[in-house]
């Protein structure tokens, strides 16, 4: 149940070494301030699930050696090119890669949300994505006539980590249209949220705001982190910092440059 966090580090206590953390895609509110705090703390061996894709966040965490396993459908810096630390870690075998496809990650979390052991999904059959996923099964649908279909086991992360525009003092978090953030929280054991600001009053009291609210019932801690998605965008609030992302892409192209990036923007806390 919700407790107000004293600090960002305090809020992140739930993200322990070796735990399974689910994080959202770039346009849904990526907790980058929290990501930098985790790197500073030196979190290790994460099973990182990026729903369903990631960009800078996964690349940073991988480069900083925080990740043991990555489960996602794609990591890319988009218009700024490939994700260099991700590509390097996969080709060197430094991380275990669990390649997925976007709707499979959504469905697996929805299975946990609904308390069922699996969810079916069309597609996948005949792909190498399926071939390399021993944890996925194929059955003959009992509603068809020789109709194979993939079943995905429910995914229950230890922690859902997300960034949102605002929360109130009851732990209610306004997520707007990014409803997969609610599914993440429903599926995860514990949910940690950073927000731009605290909303006065109770978000659930206003039917219009309530429609876009993740109830505090599912939230363990909330910390304020202004511009907490920087340098990534927060939809309807601020755009990506293209200049910074281009700088990241340049620096992270080499291990040395990446180390310098960490020194400059993560450890020194000069960010934002």
């Amino acid at each position, binding site marked *: 149940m919700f407790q107000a966090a004293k600090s960002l580090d305090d809020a992140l206590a739930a993200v322990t070494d070796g735990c399974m953390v689910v994080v959202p895609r770039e346009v849904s509110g990526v907790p980058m301030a929290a990501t930098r705090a985790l790197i500073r703390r030196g979190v290790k061996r994460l099973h990182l699930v990026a729903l369903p894709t990631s960009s800078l966040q996964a690349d940073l965490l991988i480069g900083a050696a925080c990740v043991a396993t990555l489960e996602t459908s*794609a990591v*890319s810096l988009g218009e700024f090119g490939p994700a260099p630390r991700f590509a390097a870690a*996969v080709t060197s075998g430094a991380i275990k890669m669990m390649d997925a*496809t976007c709707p499979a990650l959504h469905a697996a979390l929805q299975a946990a949300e609904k308390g069922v052991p699996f969810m079916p999904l069309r597609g996948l059959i005949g792909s190498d994505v399926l071939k390399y996923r021993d944890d996925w099964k194929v059955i003959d649908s009992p509603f068809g006539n*020789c109709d*194979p279909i993939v079943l995905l086991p429910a995914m229950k992360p230890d922690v859902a980590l997300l960034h949102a525009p605002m929360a109130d003092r009851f732990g209610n978090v306004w997520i707007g*249209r*990014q*409803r997969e953030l609610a599914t993440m929280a429903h599926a995860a054991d514990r949910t940690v949220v950073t927000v731009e600001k605290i909303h006065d009053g109770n978000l659930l009291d206003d039917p219009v705001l309530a429609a876009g609210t993740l109830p505090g019932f599912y939230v363990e801690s909330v910390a304020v982190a202004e511009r907490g998605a920087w340098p990534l965008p927060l939809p309807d609030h601020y755009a990506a910092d293209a200049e910074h992302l281009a700088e990241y892409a340049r620096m992270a192209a080499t291990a040395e440059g990446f180390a310098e990036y960490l020194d400059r923007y993560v450890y020194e806390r000069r960010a934002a």
Partner: protein
Amino acid sequence: MSMNAAPLEFRSEELLADVIARLIGDVRHVAVGNASPIPATAALLARERGKGRPYVSLLGSPKNTFWTDGARELFDCAGQGRIDVFFLSGGQIDGQGNVNLVSTGDYEHPKVRFPGSFGSAYLYYVVPKVILFRVEHSRRTLVPHVDFISAPGVSEQNVFRPGGPIALVTNRCLFSFAGGRFTLASVHPGHTVEEVIENTGFDFDRLATVPETPAPSPATLALLRETAAPQLAEVYPQFARQVFGVGQAALSS
């Protein structure tokens, strides 16, 4: 990829958009993935020609998408049969229509790692018309067999598959796809069949005489430049400026 070699009154991007708009045909809903300005241009052109039909969703553009059910809604929408056309690309594409968005070499010890399969392992199966689009037409991208099948071009008869590839558009030509094979449908102006054969890593069918891809008509060019381009500029400002000249009603060249 520039068309400067030939004295044409249109740009390569305009030709490709025209080709893709014809492939889209008369459908209800075209969705275009992130960072796909040429397919987006084609979808907007098709919508102008159809006077509002098809409905066009440009992913990654809040103004041009209606999603309010989170990141899953695109896939749910496709699963409901409400997306008729989608676009896919690949680090590698092979002659069976398999696409590879994952890696080259051995999967466990890859030589080159690409971003990942995204939604391809699903959308390729359920969207009726998937148009493969890869500007770079080379033996590096068009291979005999992909190293990793993110999504297969064809499936066994008993696999649920209302969708799949209908065509592959490159900077050199248009291939149609049927029965598990590509057929060279037309070669773009300024390119040749020999050049296509030379630069394609997979086997494909062709008629004795391969037609030239029709150049965009003056009416199409006007529609592209005067009506589609300004709409595109909202989503792809750099592309719109570079190809069409931002805010300009017509192209100067």
